[in-house]
């Protein structure tokens, strides 16, 4: 009689060192091979959308901070331009520039966490702390400007909560000077490390058509070789004024759309963000930041879907207004939420260790998946 065998079901999470929060992956394993991954989410559900219906428009902003808490600035950004579009507000130049500067700094900070924790997932502890050390500088700049390090509530509908700190421009320039060599160091320490390449190249390959069908966006989509960046392709704010490239996965070390590409696209994006930053800092106009602040935020009846290029992908706000002070419905299309849904497709047939590598390369933030 043949020995009866069956798949081993392993619960990775909700408490697990590398699920980046409280995510539970129900993994069916055949030895160490992954047969099926079934993600269970919702452990961090904080009823953002229900809350938003009971809040006035400005009161929603602090809640948006708490979704993708590693990219709060960009969450604010998306929300305020959605409401501005609904109300038809034109914001002053200076505000637009400051928003872009903050957004790009936030993108660098978010990518730092993504890259650092990715190294951590693969066992390299040191790059993680180097990146956190540098991220601290960005957070200090944010703190100087708006007083908070993580949850900013900085961008308001029609303006900003504070003008830039007088030292900000100098510090931002210094940061760019300081951080460029550190990217090289990171590349030498981690990106081009043979073990790291072996762990990530040819792993979790995401073909472009699958990526589009799954609605994957952001660095993950670009790593699959699709030249798609909302900052260029569906431009918002003043991104059309800047000269920057969209890094696309080339498959340098393996196949296009593997984990290494997803990692490396983020490294290159930090460089591009610094280019935007430099231009924005050079062109930064003077002016009053509060001139377009509306007295009362009461948008007309209507719907709006505004999407922005969050560090993790397309962050969309679908707002229905019924003409009152509170939004009738706010639906958030979180990039991590959509990106995570592809994990079963990516990790089937790989090893357990690859599952961790793939999960890390998606760069999820559970605060935004569960909202």
């Amino acid at each position: 009689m043949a020995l009866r065998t069956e798949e081993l079901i392993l619960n990775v999470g909700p408490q697990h060192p590398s699920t980046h929060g409280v995510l539970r992956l129900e993994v069916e394993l055949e030895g160490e091979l992954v047969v099926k991954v079934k993600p269970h989410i919702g452990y961090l559900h904080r009823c953002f959308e229900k809350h938003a219906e009971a809040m006035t428009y400005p009161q929603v902003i602090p809640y948006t901070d708490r979704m993708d808490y590693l990219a709060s600035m960009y969450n604010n950004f998306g929300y305020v331009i959605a409401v501005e579009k609904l109300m038809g507000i034109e914001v002053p130049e200076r505000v637009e520039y400051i928003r872009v500067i903050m957004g790009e700094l936030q993108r660098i900070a978010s990518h730092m966490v993504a890259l650092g924790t990715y190294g951590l997932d693969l066992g390299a502890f040191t790059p993680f702390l180097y990146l956190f050390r540098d991220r601290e500088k960005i957070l200090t700049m944010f703190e100087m400007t708006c007083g908070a390090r993580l949850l900013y509530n900085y961008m308001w509908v029609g303006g900003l909560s504070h003008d830039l700190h007088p030292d900000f421009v100098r510090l931002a320039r210094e940061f760019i000077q300081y951080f460029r060599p550190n990217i090289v160091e990171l590349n030498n320490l981690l990106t081009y490390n043979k073990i790291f390449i072996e762990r990530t190249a040819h792993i979790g390959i995401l073909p472009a058509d699958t990526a589009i069908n799954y609605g994957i966006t952001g660095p993950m989509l670009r790593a699959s070789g699709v030249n798609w960046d909302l900052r260029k392709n569906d431009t918002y704010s003043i991104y059309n004024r800047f000269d920057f490239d969209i890094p696309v996965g080339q498959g340098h070390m393996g196949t296009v759309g593997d984990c290494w590409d997803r990692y490396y696209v983020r490294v290159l994006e930090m460089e591009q963000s610094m280019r935007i930053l430099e231009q924005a800092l050079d062109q930064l106009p003077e002016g009053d930041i509060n001139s377009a602040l509306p007295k009362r935020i009461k948008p007309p009846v209507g719907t709006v879907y505004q999407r922005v290029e969050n560090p993790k992908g397309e962050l969309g706000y679908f707002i229905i207004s019924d003409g009152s002070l509170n939004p009738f419905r706010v639906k958030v299309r979180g990039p991590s939420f959509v990106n995570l849904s592809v994990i079963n497709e990516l990790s089937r047939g790989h090893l357990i260790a690859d599952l961790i590598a793939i999960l890390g390369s998606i760069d999820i933030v559970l605060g935004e998946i569960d909202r």
Partner: protein
Amino acid sequence: MKQYFKNTWEGLWTVFVGMKITFKHLFVPSVTIQYPDVKVPLPERVRNRLYVNMDDCIGCDQCARACPVECIEIETVKSMPEEDLGKTSNGKKKALWVTKFNIDIAKCCYCQLCVFPCPTECIYMTDVYEFSEFKREDLLYKFSTLSGEETLQKKENFEKFQAEKEAQKAAEIKAKAEAAAKAKAESESKPNSDETKQSEPPKQENS
């Protein structure tokens, strides 16, 4: 075969490159600090624990309405006309006794939305960030300067005042009505009175 040796070489070489970088960092001064002994200087815009300067508060309730998490609770009682509450530092006249101004710091999300609407700039965020407590109740900060008895007294006063006022009003109305009735009676008694003049019916006031 060539790939094989290349792999071996790359494997060793990139390890050495990495080791060189980490070795250099052994001698870089550390960026962390000894926190409770050494503290990072905070920028002036820093957003930490809320503070309310009650001398300036006029009890307008705007901060409580702006708060997205409803952590501010304000109760006010109108002052007596003879009481002078003084003025705020920017010249606004105070007209309300703030009998209750509680901020539940445990709920506070440090968004600073309450700070901007304040007309007298009396609520603001300080740079105090070490205020952990063992009990959640201890994080309920009571800013009102009035004691419980005083509050009661003020309320009583106001109620009394209100009642008096109302009584006065009622009396006035009554007097008016009586006067009107009298006038009517008088007018009726006079044969050549103005026909267009109409007397109001006495109002029923329930207080």
